[in-house]
């Protein structure tokens, strides 16, 4: 069962080729085939939970270009497994969603599968250059989706997205090459070698900021967010759900992987600055969300606010913050998918997602508005929903580190809840107007997806331990960067130790 991961990596590739080759099939059959294939991939991802699959150590190692330090090295640890499960589940849901709402095109499905290759590789690779390659692979299909299936052709939006993303990834590449030159004589991009580096503090600082800006663009955090809303609005429907929910977690995953292991000193140095600026970012984003006129805008800016919170609580270097942030990564993905799916259904039926034009949807479909309500509550972090657990832990950790920021976070949460409830009130309650006069018809598939999402949102809130156990596993790992058992024992501190670093500094 050692080849489990390789199969997981190869299957999306094969699926992309198969789907592209079957372009002369009838569209319904093609989408059924795509759903089947993605379901197979999702099931395979769950294999390690039920069967004994060895995920420890290196799964695969092949030197691609020795002169450039590029080798195909993969390994799956607890963090990778969590992200893989999350992303492949969302992919399956997205394929289910695309059954109806989309102009059925084979190339569209192929593009989605290519994104899946990129993410699967990204979450499992153990070589920095490979990491960069997979990072970029996710970019290309999104460009194609924007160009070919965008709801309207906006040259500038595409360029904005591409330039922002590439500026970030070039910064990351620069930092990687810099790190490569810092490794001992036969230079290497291997994470295993990188974990054993102990870098001088000022170099750590340079690397820290290069990487942080790169990841902040991808997430995005506030000064780097300008690409987000236009891109979400331009992308065709199930694809933007994917970008908003899973691709935004790439930056967070990278933060988790790299910073604790590579730049512990710089982390402590810049901790206060980063936490404060993330909290400010969350504040600004939630106030911008207040002024949004479309549902997509509300979602985009609330998403910025939530992800800023996640980054802030990761940088508190507290155990509670770590647990809360990783939990919130999962919860936020699920609720974003849910919220965005509701927007897509509304947009599909009524052709608009402008808040002013929508009202009284509850009268048209009770099931839909009930599901929407649960998802809204979950995003607003009401107890017994998935949003609450993560948010609570995160706020707790931020309060401990910076009480003032804690107050800021409190304001963010209140404003966020206000925005969400306002949105619900405006769109669902009241009487139907001219736009929303037609009945809200959902077919069985759409109902199933909605109910699934509701079950996820409530289930995670009721049984948070399902995820928190996994977070505990991640937390107890020796090193987040490299999961190979070599050279980690003596040199590298455990994550717990790294997280306790501020205390050590204080005592000194």
């Amino acid at each position, binding site marked *: 069962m050692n080849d489990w991961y390789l199969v997981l990596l190869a299957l999306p590739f094969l699926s992309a080729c198969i789907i592209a080759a079957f*372009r002369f099939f009838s569209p319904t059959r093609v989408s059924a085939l795509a759903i089947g294939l993605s379901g197979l991939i999702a099931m395979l991802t769950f294999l390690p939970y039920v069967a004994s699959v060895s995920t420890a150590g290196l799964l695969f190692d092949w030197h*691609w*270009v*020795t*002169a*450039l330090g590029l080798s195909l090295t993969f390994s799956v640890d607890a963090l990778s497994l969590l992200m893989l499960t999350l992303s492949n589940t969302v992919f399956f849901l997205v394929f289910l969603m695309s059954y109806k709402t989309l102009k059925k095109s084979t*190339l569209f499905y192929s593009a989605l599968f290519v994104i899946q290759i990129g993410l699967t590789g990204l979450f499992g690779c153990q070589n920095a*250059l490979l990491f*960069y*390659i997979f990072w*970029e*692979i996710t*970019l*290309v299909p999104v*460009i*194609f989706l924007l*160009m*070919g299936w965008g709801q309207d*052709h906006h*040259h500038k939006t*595409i*360029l904005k997205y*591409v*330039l922002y993303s*590439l*500026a970030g990834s*070039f910064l990351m*590449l*620069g930092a990687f*090459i*810099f790190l*490569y*030159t810092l490794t001992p004589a036969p230079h290497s991009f291997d994470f295993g070698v990188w974990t054993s580096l102990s870098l001088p503090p000022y170099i750590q600082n340079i690397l820290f900021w290069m990487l942080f800006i790169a990841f902040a663009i991808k997430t995005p955090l506030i000064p780097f967010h300008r690409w987000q809303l236009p891109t979400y609005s331009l992308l065709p429907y199930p694809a933007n759900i994917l970008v908003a929910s899973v691709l935004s977690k790439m930056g967070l995953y990278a933060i988790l992987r790299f910073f604790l292991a590579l730049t512990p000193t710089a982390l402590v140095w810049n901790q206060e600055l980063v936490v404060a600026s993330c909290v400010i970012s969350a504040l600004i984003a939630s106030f911008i969300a207040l002024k949004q006129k479309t549902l997509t805008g509300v979602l985009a800016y609330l998403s910025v606010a939530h992800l800023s919170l996640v980054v802030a609580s990761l940088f508190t270097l507290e155990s509670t913050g770590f647990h809360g942030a990783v939990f919130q990564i999962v919860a936020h993905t699920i609720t974003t998918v849910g919220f965005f799916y509701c927007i897509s259904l509304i947009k599909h039926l009524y052709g608009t997602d402008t808040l002013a034009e929508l009202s009284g949807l509850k009268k048209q479909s009770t099931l839909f508005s009930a599901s929407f309500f649960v998802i809204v509550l979950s995003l607003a972090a009401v107890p017994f929903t998935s949003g609450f657990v993560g948010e609570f832990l995160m706020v707790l950790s931020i309060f401990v580190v910076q009480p003032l920021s804690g107050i800021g976070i409190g304001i963010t949460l209140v404003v966020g809840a206000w925005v969400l409830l306002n949105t619900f009130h405006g769109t669902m309650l009241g009487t139907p107007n001219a736009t929303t006069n037609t009945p809200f018809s959902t077919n069985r598939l759409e109902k199933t997806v909605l109910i699934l999402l509701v079950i996820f949102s409530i289930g995670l809130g009721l049984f948070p331990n399902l995820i928190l156990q996994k977070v505990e596993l991640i937390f107890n790992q020796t090193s987040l960067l490299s999961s190979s058992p070599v050279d980690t024992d003596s040199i590298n501190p455990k994550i717990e130790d790294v997280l306790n670093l501020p205390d050590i500094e204080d005592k000194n």
Partner: protein
Amino acid sequence: MAIFISLAILSILVLLLEAFHFKKTGLILARTGLAVTLFASIWSPSPDLYVALFSPLILGLLFLILFFPTINRLDHVALLLFSGLGALVMLSHTDFITLFLGIELLSIPLYVLAGSGHTRRSEEAGIKYFLLGSVASAILLFGMALVFASTGQLNLLDLALHTRIHFPSPLLMTGVLFVLAGMAFKLSAAPFHMWAPDVYEGSSTSYTAYMATVVKCAAIATVFKLFQFAFGPLLSSWGIWVVLIACLSLVVGNLMAMHQHSVKRLIAFSGIANVGFMLLPLAFYTGFSLSVTFFYVLTYSLATLGILLVNDCIKTSTEDDHLHRFHGLARNNIFLFIVLCVSVLSLAGIPPLPGFFAKYSLLMLLFQQGHFGLVALALLATLGGLTYYLRILFASLQIRSHSDPKPTTVTPYFLGLLLLLFALCLMIFPESFLP
């Protein structure tokens, strides 16, 4: 030497066959003949490193260009072969006289080919190329004369010995810079690039492809041979000029390409920008720099060839060269669309396509030499390049269609398949092409 003679005989034979109207036979003969010389050049590589690396590349590119759909006149094929012979002579020069002979043999058939269309644009291209090319040749000759005046040597080996022993005189340095300027013209590096967009635009697409790939390959190889080998010890004095030319090319090429609407002009400016990337390694004498540039030239040429092939396959009612030509390609011809995508994304340096490895190894070289400013410039240039490369893809994904991308023969498909296979090889085994 055998390759030169066989290529010369081949061109004369093709010319004779044209005279007797054996068009098909002539074309087949030209292609098979070139394939044979290509294999011969790979089979018994020349002891000269530069020739061993670049002559198979030049012959291979020439071979691929003969499959372009607009290649249909045998006399033009013969001219192309003569010009290719010139490229090989220029590449394998051992003294200045052979170098000049090669350059002229490369250029004169091209002046004719550039002006061979029956449009005003083509005539303009021919005249412009001829006039500016002659001036550049004169500058090159002047530089050679100055070098000869100060050293008394024309042979590369003697020159290398001379520059190693003697302190360079101002006269010699002036000569070297004139030679650099003359070669920069052939490379179409800024600020000697003015001719390229007009000439590319006026010529037929297949000859544009020849100029954008073969001529650039031959010129860059010659520059490397000349400057690394003969003037190598003077690196400290001409290195800064090479860096200047390279940076200027990067900036000018990218900025100008953003405003182009004609496919060939865009390719011309993208070529200018890429020359900047190719020249950068020359300024740092490491054992690695030749192989970096070789790999870069290889990926650049294949990608450019791919874009121009697709451009050549599209027939429009009007003879303009606007990016609109590509409209509707994704829907009408998926194969050509894939060729276009792979080529454009490779030129843009998107991983894991071959262009990425080329750009990446270049960055690595600059990084190891400690030139962080140049690294930043190269990254910015790559970013700028994306803005116009994506416009090509953007056009091809548009639904409106003005064109009919249906090649009449099967050869473009064969060529496209070859290009794709080669890109795949470069992607999976980049190391076997990084000598």
